């Protein structure tokens, strides 16, 4: 993974400094000094070894664009991204699953059709388009929400007022992402519920004279929801990767925006740092989902 991380961004031969200094009056010696300071005058092999060494000592280097520690840059943006993508991941999991349960249990009714088709539409619609639409309707026409950003710029509100301001800015982007992710959960839940519904033990449960709701909640769901655990864990892994499109529409200063900026340099240390964090979080949550499975599914035995 470290190899991919390093070479992926260097497949295209580019000179980040040439881009940085285009059209500026800076003597060549100064540019050369900076090039050697960034280690860009070394052969690629040497650069790679240096990168490995520094990464293992948990030093991600200094961003070319901001000249701050990459780690500090990333950490400062994590809260924004986790708040946005995390909130939507949780809400979409909850509401998507609920929708899937209703649709699956009442399949081929108008409820099923309306839930399935509306979540399918939301799932297929491009996120930035949906975001732009919400922006135009709720922020511009109705004026209920601010047009982008994370806080009211220049506000010196503190305490509750500050939090309320933050939530108000968070609402539209989080709503956009929640709706966009909803479809996955609904469809997976619905189909896995349909699968269990034909199982014999459900017939037995009904034969015992249990209420329909009891059959659904106590007998069908625990089995049907297993795939949702996997899906949720995978999605949680992607929380840190941010949401480039939605962050762009709402000017949300998260890791997605940082990635988009770093690509235009290219800011190698920043990109490497970002992708390292992204992959680490995905690996971590996959691991968590595997562990959870052991507890949730008796068929998977601890070895």
């Amino acid at each position, binding site marked *: 993974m470290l190899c991919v991380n390093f070479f992926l961004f260097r497949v*295209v*031969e*580019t*000179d*980040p400094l*040439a*881009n*940085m200094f*285009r*059209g*500026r*009056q800076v*003597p*060549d010696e*100064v540019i050369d*000094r900076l090039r050697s300071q960034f280690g860009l005058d070394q052969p690629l092999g040497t650069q790679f070894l240096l990168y490995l060494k520094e990464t293992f000592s948990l030093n991600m280097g200094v961003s070319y*664009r*901001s*000249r*701050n520690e990459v780690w500090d840059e990333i950490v400062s*943006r994590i809260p*924004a991204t986790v708040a946005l993508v995390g909130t939507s991941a949780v809400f979409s999991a909850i*509401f998507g699953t609920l*929708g899937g349960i209703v649709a699956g249990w009442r399949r081929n009714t108008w409820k099923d059709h309306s839930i399935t088709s509306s979540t399918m539409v939301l799932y297929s619609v491009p996120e930035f388009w949906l975001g*732009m639409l919400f*922006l*135009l309707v709720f*922020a*511009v026409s109705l*004026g*209920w*929400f*601010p*047009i*982008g950003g*994370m*806080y*009211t*710029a*220049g*506000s010196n*509100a503190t305490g509750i*007022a500050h939090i*309320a*301001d933050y*939530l*108000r800015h968070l*609402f539209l982007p989080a709503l956009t992402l929640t709706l966009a992710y909803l479809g996955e959960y609904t469809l997976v839940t619905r189909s896995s519920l349909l699968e269990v519904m034909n199982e014999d033990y459900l017939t037995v449960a009904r034969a015992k004279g249990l*209420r329909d709701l*009891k059959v659904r909640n106590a007998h069908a769901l625990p089995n049907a929801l297993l795939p949702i655990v996997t899906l949720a864990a995978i999605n949680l892994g992607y929380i840190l990767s941010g949401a480039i499109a939605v*962050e*762009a*529409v*709402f*000017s949300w*200063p998260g890791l997605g*925006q940082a990635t988009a*900026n770093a690509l*235009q340099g*290219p800011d190698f240390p920043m990109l490497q740092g970002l992708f390292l964090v992204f992959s680490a979080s995905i690996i971590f949550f996959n691991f968590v989902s595997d562990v959870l499975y052991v507890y949730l599914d008796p068929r998977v035995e601890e070895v």
Partner: protein
Amino acid sequence: MRRFLVLAVVALLAFSVVPAAVAQEDDTVTIRVGNTQDWETLNPTWGYLVSEWEVWNNQYEGLTTRDENLEIAPGLAESWDGSDDGLTYTYTLRDGLTWSDGEPITADDVVWTIETSKEQEWENYVYFTQYLTVTALDERTVQVTSSIPTPQLPDMGFIILPKHIWEPLGDADGVASHDGTDGVGSGPFVLAPDGFQDQQAVTMVANPNWYGWEGEEPPVDQIIFRHFENSDAMVAALESGEIDAAHNVPAAAVENLESNEDIEVVIGYQGTIEEIAVNGGAGPAQPHPALLDVEVRRAMGHAIDKQALIEDLWYGHAQEGVTFLPSVDRKWMPEFTDEEKFNFDPDLANQMLDEGGYLDSDGDGIREMPDGTNPIVIRHLVNTNEALAAQYGDLLVGWMGAIGIGVELEAMDSDQLGTAIIEGNYDTFAWGWTPGVDPDGMLSSFIADEIEGWNDANWVDERYDELYLQQIEELDEDTRIEQVHEMMKIFHEGATYISVLETPEIQAYRTDGFEGWVRQPAEDGPIMYSTTSPSYAALQPVGGGGGDDGGVNWLLIGGVAAVAVVAGVFVATRRRGTADERE
């Protein structure tokens, strides 16, 4: 499901009302400016983004500045005297200057800034300070000596930094890694404490110590620069009044904004051009051999319909140019006659190519070299980082096709393109330039020494280089202007920049917010993000009031509370219902 819907509606309403209660009404007069670029650093020794310069233009002063006509004007220095040889200037600082934190501004700050910038090679300074030596004659007087004669003096526009803040940072690394958020400056507005957070806004407050207020109360207390990642969202914010002015408005939005009576659109020119450049062949790699014939390049110029480019890509908000502009200041650009310009005339272009012997001998619609071989198919590099580059490419294919020249498009990002240009490994590309005030920077890009450097025309001319060396030392401005004019004619005749558009900064402001915007250059320049951004210190709130209302809408809050109560009752009863059903 229904209860979730109710809850969602309650949440929606609650969130939308809270802010009204949050926005406390105070008397702070704030101007909000939207911009589509973020900030990487606020360190003026090396930062380079336009958004960052806008902050420094407010926070700092040099010894001199530029007025709205771009003439050198007093900054921290109230006056200066030059020696006859033009090598030595003596500047006298204004009386009683202080930094925004109350420390006095002295000759010592000037000396420290210039000497340290040389010693530590600050990227934004060395070009200006490398030949200067400076001594403090007393608290308010500095003597600046240049080791080479230069017409750029007495301009001393670079930022003088507060020594008491910057010296303790230590060596070059210490200075470079400073984030510039100390907020101590000499200009009309300085960064507020915690004014730079989260990459989404920069807040600046009026500096009561700025000499320009002349002891009066500043009419504007606060500037907030807001970053919008999405320019359509920025335009929407301007329309809704969330911001008072916007920079980098998309050309497509101009017509709509102009129909809004509360909004004024400014199409501001400051020397920015977009060119289609042909490889002149002086680089390491060679273009198609036909392009080495200057007549072919000129013919290509005549085949390009600049008016169509303006209409199609800029919605009419750009103007035809001739060649690059050496300076924001028009005086450095000569007049060109109609014969000299490459006006759109495909018939003429075809005739020129016919006369040069470039005929389509095999009848496939593509001309060949005069010996009948090597069809003229050129490689046009499309810069994927430039919004309009792809359309440029498509249009070029059509225009060149009309004169029997084939075009192959190749997409590259700006780094790759930069490398290809340096190597001379291309036939044509489209890109742009923005000049400074002194023409030296732009002119120096096309000398022979800059091949494999900034010379993106890959073109050289002996006379051009000779004149370049003359003008760089010419102290008489009229003579220097003549020399520069001749250089511009020579470059244009070389026909490497075959199509040039002068492209504007499109900005807009609300007329119900602030008045007193200053264009720079005065006749057709932008009102913000210009050479020295003089607008902010000149702005006055319209009608003298702050403008925004933040009254609490108790009626709405009451309504929301009522809805919440009803929803709560509803949810509670539903709960009981389900509890009853439990076995």
